[in-house]
């Protein structure tokens, strides 16, 4: 069986979502470690059996022809398939025990070969965590392709940070042609254009509870490390962190206030030994990398003082910050607005502001 043939069969399996786990594992094994004659026969038998079901269903098409037709359909929508039989199937993902047999992709294929780092966060997260996540994602693109989901909240912050550089991989919990969440339909198009979209599911499959879990294993599997921006006690992002641990990846977490419901999961991760991460520098140093030089933000004297006060307070009401600085509220508002625009502060709701990133 040549690689092309194996690839087509894998596409067929992924498309039919009919491969039982045993067959998939066998193929993965065969593809990963070279083809053993006996093994191959076994696999081919299994494949023929599965394909036969398809023949009955589809009438006259063979598994291979069905796969070709399917690929053509995908291509019409701007998607292509990367299978275990392809050379550029990400090595890190290939190494996990339940690697998907084919990845349906749209966008820059070369991103698959990059070093990858995953950032995830729950859908509801404090605005400072959102701003921090965005800043970290933006900075990481200098060395990594940033991997994340496509949900609102945490994922969205990462997308906002990394999309402009194009070093962004989003893994869908649904079929390639399904817009989930519906509100991100146009965002999805933008990602396909500038970055890379990945789905392991056949066309038309809606996001389901299990597909989020399964997607999270790809997030962790693709990446060298995972950063959790925010996670409640039972957040789905913890599954990603859990998979990352199982696959032997580094886990990072943003520290949250004690008692903040949206940060319980992160703090628990740190307790269990995850890296405490406050900015991109922590990630670079954990991988032994030099942090890329950044242009220092130009601050006026008043803004610098406000930033110092804000960093000391962590999160505080604008009026309280103004009182500490000894200036009227509106001057504090102006300074904070400037810091917010420079990505050094974030609105925390109710006229409260929080510092973003850590001091040098």
């Amino acid at each position, binding site marked *: 069986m040549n690689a092309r043939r194996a690839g087509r069969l894998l596409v067929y399996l992924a498309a039919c979502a009919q491969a039982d786990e045993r067959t998939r594992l066998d193929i993965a094994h065969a593809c990963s470690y070279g083809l053993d004659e006996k093994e191959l026969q076994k696999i081919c038998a299994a494949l023929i059996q599965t394909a036969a079901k398809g023949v009955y269903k589809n009438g006259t098409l063979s598994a291979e022809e069905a796969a070709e037709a399917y690929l053509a359909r995908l291509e019409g929508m701007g998607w292509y398939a990367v299978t275990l039989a392809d050379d550029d199937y990400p090595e890190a993902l290939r190494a996990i025990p339940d690697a998907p047999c084919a990845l349906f992709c749209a966008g820059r294929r070369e991103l698959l070969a990059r070093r990858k780092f995953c950032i995830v966060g729950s859908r509801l997260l404090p605005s400072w965590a959102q701003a921090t996540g965005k800043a970290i994602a933006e900075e990481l693109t200098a060395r990594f392709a940033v991997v994340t989901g496509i949900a609102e909240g945490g994922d969205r912050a990462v997308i906002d940070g990394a999309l402009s550089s194009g070093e962004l991989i989003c893994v869908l919990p649904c079929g390639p042609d399904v817009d989930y969440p519906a509100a991100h339909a146009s965002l999805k198009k933008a990602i396909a254009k500038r970055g890379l979209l990945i789905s392991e599911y056949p066309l038309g499959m809606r996001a389901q509870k299990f597909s989020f879990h399964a997607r999270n294993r790809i997030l962790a599997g693709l990446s060298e490390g995972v950063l959790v921006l925010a996670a409640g006690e039972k957040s789905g992002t913890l599954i990603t962190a859990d998979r990352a641990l199982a696959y032997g990846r580094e886990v990072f977490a943003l520290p949250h206030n004690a008692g903040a419901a949206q940060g319980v999961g992160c703090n628990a991760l740190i307790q269990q030994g995850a890296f405490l991460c406050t900015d991109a520098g922590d990630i670079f140093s954990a991988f032994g990398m030099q942090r890329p030089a950044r242009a220092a933000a130009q601050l006026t004297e008043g803004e610098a003082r406000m930033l110092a006060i804000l960093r000391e307070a962590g999160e505080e009401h604008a009026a309280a910050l103004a009182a500490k600085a000894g200036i009227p509220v509106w001057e504090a*508002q102006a300074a904070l607005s400037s810091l917010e625009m420079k990505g050094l502060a974030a609105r925390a709701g*109710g*006229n409260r502001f929080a510092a973003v990133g850590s001091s040098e």
Partner: protein
Amino acid sequence: MIAKIVCYALQGLEGVPVEVETDAAKGIPGYEMVGLPDAAVKESKERVRSAIKNSGLLFPLGKITVNFAPADIKKEGAAFDLAVAVSLLKASEQLVGARTDDTVFLGELALDGSVRPIAGLLPILISAKGHGYTRFVVPAGNAKEAAYLGGADIFPVRSLAETVAFLTGREDISPVPAQNFVPRLHAAQGADLKYVKGQPVARRALEIAVAGGHNLLLVGPPGTGKTMLARCLPTVMPDLSFSEALEITKIHSVAGTLGEEGIVSDRPFRTPHHTATTVAMCGGGNRIVRPGEISLAHGGVLFLDELPEYKRSTLEALRQPLEDGKITVSRAGGTFTFPARFMLCASMNPCPCGNYGAADKVCTCSPAEIRRYRRKISGPLLDRIDLQVEVDNVPYEALTSDEKQESSAEVRERVNVARSIQNVRFEGSGMRTNAEMGERELSAYCRLSAEGEKILKEAFERMKLSARARSRILKVSRTIADLAASEEIAPAHVYEAVSYRLGDSLE
């Protein structure tokens, strides 16, 4: 004999002269009205007949024809009663030698001959004075309103009999003394900023909003005092000038909502309920076109509590008047323009449960729910709201503290200073506030330094602002600079203005 008496009909806010011609001829007794009178005017037939009889006067026998000229305007309401009665009496030669040619008669008659007050008297008087009439006979019940006209002889009458006695010289009525306008002190209303605890950010936004005539959106959890803050808005607004008061009074007079006082002497504060229809909001009606809430709020505040609860179409209808300061209502009966230069103040919760962004409470809404809630307010409407601020959840200690808060009077002083700067700036251009500036004025008065321009550009790109939002930020910066008595718009002013564009950073 034919008698001609002048009366006035209302078209929108303008009075139009109507001649009531009566011919009392010999013939088979009859009583006919022509000249496009509506039902209420036609009914005046019977009112006038009874009123004349019950005033001890003689209702002429014979063929009577009453004509309203010009015939092409639809005449509505009961304001013609007095004029019809007087012209009937004159035609039947019961008012020999009376001076009626240069006098305008206005009033509704009761069956016993007494004269009832009418709606829209002041706009009629103002129009009539413009047309050269200086002698009026008006219902005594409208005397207070009429007193503000000045420069005319206005005779208040209580009954038809009194009118006849006056016209025939048997009785003397002293004209209404001209009344000087005194703006009412707002403290009487009970709302005052000194009762608002905390809220330094919202207070500042309120001050800027009033100083520059900007629109304001208050976002905050339920029960944090958004309504109370809004009620303080009129208390910091500058006193009404007489011309403004007249303009507002005209609208309220036409709408029939004028109080005892006869003139609107403090700034209107209108709070239409969120079930209000588009017509109730913008004006209209079947035959009589009445001003809507936005016109009644002219010169004052239109407060929309729980903005997302209003009907979408109603809110969208506000867009054009928010730009133009007037509303044009077109109906089959004609097209009417009402002034509607109001300050829009709206309030809303940050999310359906109200706790989004609160420091100590947990929001139970999903992002999709929050988005759906906010989507109820369209981008174009949000664009037109220059200042969008969060209202704090005030802690218990602050609520019960005795710390003295700045009073409305103190804030109003600063507002007046900023307004006087604007008055000088816009002298002779018909504008009053920064918010009314057009593109030309923007480029003339809102020059930014290179640094200020850079900030605005950054904000424009980061917050994905529209061109309109950009010019609104410029206008707010101008007002902030005015409050600081600064000729230049400093970078800090731009930053502060940007910090009030909460809505753009939310979505």
